[in-house]
C-alpha cells in the first residue's frame, strides 16, 4: 500500500465486516522516540483463538469465497520492513485490537497519507461510529462521529457533511503538524 492510511482503511474494513459498531483509530507520531504507532480497536465479533495465532498468514482467512486474506499480512510486512511489527489481540464476542509499530524515519516507511479520505470512506461504508485520535509528540487532534451526530443527526452520509468532515480532519491534523501528505 502506498499510504499508511490505506492500511488503516483496509483493517477497519475488517472491523466493519466483523459487525463492529465502534471503531477507534489512533495514529501516534512519536517523533521524539522515532516511532510511528497505529492502533485500531473495534467492538466486532472478535477472532477465534486458534486462528489468532496465524492471523497474519496470508493463507489464513475466515472468509468463505477464497482461501487467501491479505490485509493483515500486507500491513505486517510493511511494519517489518520498517524495523517494527504488528500485533493482534482479540477476544471472541468482545472485539479486536490491531497495533502496528514502524520506525518513524525508516526510508521504506510509507507516508501517513490522507487520513481524512480514509475516515470519510469508512463513514460511507457502514453504520459505524469512528473515533480518531492523532498525536504528534505532545500535540493531539481528536475527532468523533458521535460528536458530529449530536449536531446534524444520525445521517452523516450527506455529501456536504462528509466534505465538512474531510476538511475538518485535514485542518485538525495540519494544526498539530501531523504528516498528512509528506
Amino acid at each position, binding site marked *: 500500500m502506498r499510504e499508511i492510511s490505506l492500511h488503516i482503511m483496509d483493517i477497519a*474494513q475488517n472491523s466493519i465486516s466483523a459487525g463492529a459498531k465502534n471503531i477507534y483509530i489512533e495514529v501516534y507520531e512519536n517523533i521524539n522516540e522515532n516511532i510511528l504507532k497505529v492502533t485500531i480497536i473495534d467492538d466486532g465479533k472478535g477472532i477465534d483463538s486458534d486462528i489468532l495465532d496465524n492471523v497474519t498468514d496470508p493463507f489464513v482467512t475466515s472468509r468463505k469465497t477464497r482461501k487467501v486474506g491479505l490485509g493483515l499480512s500486507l500491513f505486517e510486512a510493511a511494519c517489518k520492513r520498517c524495523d517494527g511489527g504488528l500485533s493482534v489481540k482479540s477476544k471472541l464476542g468482545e472485539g479486536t485490537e490491531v497495533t502496528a509499530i514502524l520506525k518513524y524515519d525508516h526510508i521504506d516507511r510509507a507516508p501517513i497519507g490522507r487520513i481524512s479520505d480514509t475516515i*470519510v*470512506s469508512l463513514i460511507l461504508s457502514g453504520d459505524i461510529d469512528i473515533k480518531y485520535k492523532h498525536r504528534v509528540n505532545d500535540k493531539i487532534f481528536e475527532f468523533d462521529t458521535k460528536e458530529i451526530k449530536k449536531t446534524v443527526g444520525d445521517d452523516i452520509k*450527506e455529501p*456536504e457533511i462528509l466534505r465538512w468532515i474531510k*476538511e475538518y480532519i485535514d485542518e485538525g491534523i495540519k494544526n498539530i503538524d501531523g504528516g498528512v501528505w509528506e
Partner: protein
Amino acid sequence: MKTIQELEEIRKNTLDRVNQRRDRNTTRIVVGMATCGIAAGARPVLLAIMDEVEKLNLKDVIVAQTGCIGVCRLEPIVEVIRPGEDKVTYIKMTPEKARRVVNEHVVGGKVVEEYVMHIVDGKIINDYTVEKD
C-alpha cells in the same frame, strides 16, 4: 477554521433533500473496497464519485461499497445498477473514468463501453482499454 455553526447550516440545507429521496428510482453505484481494491486505488475512485454526485446534485443515487468482487486483477471495480436495468461492471477505474461514468451513464443513461468488463463464453476475455492502445 471549521466550526460547528457551519455544520448546523449544512444540516438545515440538506434536511429537505433527505426527505425527498425515494428508493424506487434509485441508482446504485457500488465500489469494491477490499484489500485488492484499496491497493489498486479504489479510495480516490469512491471519493471522486461522491464528489461528482454532490457537484451534479444527484438525488436518486446511492454510493455504496462492497468487498472483493473476485477479479482482483481488474480492480478498482465499479458497478452501476440503474433501476430496471442490468448491472454494468466497470473495471480498472480511475477518478477521471469514474467521473465520466457518473456523467454519461448514471445521468445520461448511456453505458461507457470502453471501461466495461466483457465476458464471452463465461470468460473475462479482455480489458478493452488495453486492447485499444
